[in-house]
């Protein structure tokens, strides 16, 4: 299990390849990569991601540990950036490895669902006209009920 919280960019392809190389015996690897999406008006300059150092790492650790206890996973990776990001930049990535595809898919979805509303990150969208904090969605809270 590897949990990384950093302001530096990361390379999703390199991370996938290292993850695959490290997971001996698993037939199935699932990744989710989240990218900075432009806003409706199409003029996003920067996304600023704030986090709660200390709590972030422990929250991500708990979520990943919970995933490992629920599914037979050979490995789990969570990377999340903070700081200033630009449209199309990778924000975060999770990867799961398992013998079977169902476990790898479910665990990755579980990680994403919890990460969305249980990891202390906040996003601010900055355009030349001003800035807005991204609001949480009720559905992000609702999806947790399925687990």
């Amino acid at each position: 299990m590897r949990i990384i919280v950093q302001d530096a960019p990361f390379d999703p392809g390199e991370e996938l390849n290292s993850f695959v190389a490290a997971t001996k015996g698993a037939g199935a690897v699932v990744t989710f990569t989240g990218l900075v999406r432009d806003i409706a008006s199409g003029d996003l300059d920067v996304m600023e991601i704030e986090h709660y150092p200390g709590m972030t790492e422990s929250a991500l650790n708990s979520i990943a540990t919970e995933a490992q206890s629920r599914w037979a996973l050979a490995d789990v990776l969570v990377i999340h950036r903070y700081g200033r990001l630009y449209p199309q930049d990778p924000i975060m990535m999770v990867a799961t490895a398992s013998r079977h595809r169902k476990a790898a898919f479910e665990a990755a979805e579980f990680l994403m669902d919890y990460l969305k509303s249980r990891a202390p990150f906040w996003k601010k969208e900055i355009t030349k006209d001003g800035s807005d904090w991204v609001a949480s969605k009720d559905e992000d809270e609702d999806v947790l009920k399925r687990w």
Partner: protein
Amino acid sequence: MEVLYFAWVRERIGLPKERIETGAETVADLVKDLCAREERYAAAFADLTALRVALDQELSSFDAPLAGVREVAFFPPMTGG
């Protein structure tokens, strides 16, 4: 205790953290104390349903007791991922 603010809570209150001496027994009591101090606290805490609280870096609730807590953090619902 150490009190931390994140995202727009931090912006409204105007600082990321401060040391507060309080006799408040619960989080809700602490919020009342803060709101009584200055308008910027009242503005930040106007709608508690829009806020979350963590005690010693664990998500908690506004009716939780503060006994033994070293760090309280207030912030809006999280938007990771």
